[in-house]
């Protein structure tokens, strides 16, 4: 666990050094109640998050459950080498980055736009109604969503193709054509999560003082300008925090969802790291290899988060740490 401290920002350390010891102590003492407040939380993170992290060791071992961590053989970077040397590594990496790009550039703005639109609704009944309806899909599991998609899109009597055909067009092979995988993936993500995503922004928008809108209207600002100059700045902080967290999830694209969409025809564009190790990890008991891939995913995520947070700080934003 020594590695976290080495990664921690250097600048802060320098600041500490500069500060006289006594002054530092005074600052700590002043906040002793605050430390008491965060103590249970820190204990929680230590016990349930950091203690189990020793399990990451097995990514450098040939772990066998009956031998345990202490008895398993060390293999160094063998599993990482195997991952990078795999003929599919770059294909998977590319697929992952493209899906990540879709998540950031296509999906991410939608809940923001949706909540801005909802914020402009004056009829509370309509607003609450729409809010409640759009958040329902979040509660449907991917299994159900993917199977409903199948029923709608299949060539064998799906309603979408029936409509396309009745309009005089050729049927479209949505399910067994790799070109359709990415649109389908992101549309399903949007459909399921966009409404749910608005909740947090709507909560942030409540902080806006209604008088600000009043004043803006007096100045003759139109609706779009009000959104741009009043609403958006109010939720900027939350947007940035969410964006950084999302960036950290770069290799975390929803295993179950992708796995259910994956088939022999779209594997070239749909295989991601999680689906790639699924067979190896679960069905063939290769604990070490799947842990190594998890380790790799975490490391990439960490680099992305550190970078994104650094960028945010550059622009004088709060960031996430």
């Amino acid at each position, binding site marked *: 666990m020594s590695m*976290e401290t080495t990664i921690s920002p250097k600048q802060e350390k320098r600041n500490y050094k500069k500060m006289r010891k006594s002054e530092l102590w005074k600052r700590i003492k002043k906040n002793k109640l605050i*430390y008491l407040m965060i103590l*249970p939380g*820190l204990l929680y993170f230590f016990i349930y998050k950091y203690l189990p992290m020793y399990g990451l060791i097995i990514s450098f071992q040939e772990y066998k459950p009956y031998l345990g961590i202490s008895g398993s053989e060390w293999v160094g970077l063998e599993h990482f080498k195997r991952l990078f040397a795999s003929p599919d590594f770059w294909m998977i990496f590319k697929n992952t980055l493209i899906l990540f790009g879709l998540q950031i550039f296509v999906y991410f703005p939608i809940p923001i736009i949706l909540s801005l639109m909802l914020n402009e*609704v004056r009829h509370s009944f*309509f607003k609450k109604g729409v809010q409640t309806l759009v958040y329902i899909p979040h509660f449907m599991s991917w299994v159900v969503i993917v199977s409903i998609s199948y029923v709608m899109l299949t060539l064998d009597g799906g309603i979408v193709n029936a409509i396309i055909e009745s309009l005089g067009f050729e049927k479209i092979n949505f399910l067994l054509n790799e070109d359709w995988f990415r649109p389908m993936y992101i549309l399903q993500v949007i459909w399921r999560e966009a409404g749910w995503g608005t909740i947090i922004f709507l909560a942030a*928008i409540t*902080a806006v003082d209604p008088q600000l809108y009043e004043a803006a209207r007096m100045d003759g600002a139109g609706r779009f300008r009000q959104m741009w100059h009043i609403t958006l700045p109010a939720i900027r902080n939350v947007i940035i925090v969410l964006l950084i967290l999302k960036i*950290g999830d770069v290799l975390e694209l929803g295993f179950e969802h992708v796995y259910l969409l994956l088939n022999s025809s779209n594997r070239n564009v749909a295989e991601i790291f999680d689906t790639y190790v699924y067979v190896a990890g679960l069905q063939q008991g290769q604990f070490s290899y799947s842990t190594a891939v998890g380790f790799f995913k975490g490391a990439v995520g960490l680099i992305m988060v550190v970078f994104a947070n650094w960028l945010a700080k550059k622009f004088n934003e709060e960031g996430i*740490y």
Partner: protein
Amino acid sequence: MAKKKRITMGSRMFDFFNYFLLALIALITVLPFIHVVGSSFATSAEVANTKFLLFPTKFTLDAYEYIFSTDTIFKGLGVSVIVTLGGTLWSMFFSTLTAYGLARKDLVGRRVINFLIVFTLLFNGGMIPTFLVVQQTGLLNSLWALIIPVTINAFNMIILRSFFVNIPESLEESAKIDGANDFSILFRIVLPISLPAIATISLFYAVTYWNTYMHAILYLSDAGKWPIQVLLRQIVVLASGLTYDGAAYTDVPPPETTIKMATIVVATVPILLVYPFLQKYFAKGALLGSVKG
């Protein structure tokens, strides 16, 4: 009032398109759910014969009668309600304390701690070491195993913290001058003006607890303590033909689609009802309004 007169043509157009688009979006998002609900009230024959059933022509409660004919689903719902209520309170309590503490800009070590918490979002030790810790802390086969190991969700805590950071420091300063300590500042001043944030994060926790599934299977060997999601998942998986077919047990026909849909409805509606209930905390200007009050 004067306000009404100010509504311009452009504004009216805006409203029209806005309402229209939102209604359309709501319709699209809700259609598959109507399909689920509709199928749950239809006969199996109609479901098998209609491609995308929305409203059954023959309304029947057969599927519901079937799933409610044993107490399994009631027990599952009961467990889920207890875990969701208890877990949300538990998690909110500790998350609020931690988030508020870490939102204080003058806290020494704040950045390091925050970083260490972000770190847990990216790396985890895996199923087996976590199981060992849960075992060592004596939680196995207790409902607490569904709550304590997920006491604080780092993601939720960070969001909550970012809400707290936005609160003007002047509010806290003035309270301090009046001799209030940090706890009373948090509970008397910060929380009341953070209701939208509290409601949001509570909802997030409630939904997470409601959806608890994997932990129940790993940590609870007594099937009588399984929450509704385990049952739901089992039915959905069986009815979707996702189980391993090999050497299949003698013929267990997959559950009917109608039963699958009815179970989805029963397992989903309770948690769907939480949001409308919380919506009153999202009223515009709630924050500043209560500061004044």
